[in-house]
């Protein structure tokens, strides 16, 4: 049961253009969402997050949009740079009855920015 889905395994974008990475979730209890970037042979690194009380969060070239009714979030990278080429994971968080939080990751989208 894949609660967090990234339906595009790969994406190629020209340098300078916009990259849009998508993520869908099924559990309406998720209230906090994160995006991670992963280079080969390295661990994932945090990129940007958004709380369910917001519909947009921006940090430099990165913007995350959340559509709660559609259970959908997207990451926009503008302008895209060759150094952005990596695998991007979205993650969703829900509170357990114990008061701790569980993070579930999507399967990732490999972004290739072409120079």
């Amino acid at each position: 049961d894949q609660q967090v889905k990234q339906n595009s395994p790969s994406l190629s974008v020209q340098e300078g253009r916009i990259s849009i990475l998508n993520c869908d979730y099924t559990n309406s209890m998720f209230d906090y969402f994160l995006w991670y970037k992963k280079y080969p042979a390295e661990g994932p690194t945090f990129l940007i997050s958004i709380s369910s009380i917001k519909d947009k969060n921006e940090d430099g070239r990165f913007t995350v949009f959340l559509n709660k009714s559609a259970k959908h979030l997207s990451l926009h990278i503008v302008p895209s740079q060759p150094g952005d080429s990596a695998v991007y994971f979205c993650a969703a968080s829900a509170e357990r009855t114990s008061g701790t939080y569980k993070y579930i990751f999507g399967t990732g989208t490999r972004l290739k920015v072409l120079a």
Partner: protein
Amino acid sequence: EAGVAQSPRYKIIEKRQSVAFWCNPISGHATLYWYQQILGQGPKLLIQFQNNGVVDDSQLPKDRFSAERLKGVDSTLKIQPAKLEDSAVYLCASSRRVGQEEKLFFGSGTQLSVL
């Protein structure tokens, strides 16, 4: 601040052998996670510790996997005996929650190949 440290970086073993991975989280981070990432998939939570107590081990194959976090700091993950399907990257992460904000910081991972 120092990041999450993991060792070894790579390990090759034969099936039915045992293996252990070590993780040192970021100082002050109460929560520690072990994730398994199989090639082409997203990280899957194996076990989550809050200080030195287990809060979630529902996806840990307990007949062969074990983990401990002594004194609420370092953690070890052991597999005994290993199977071919255990070939994956094992990622350790730590976090500290501030309000609703919580970022997971990952180590570089241990790449395990079971032959």
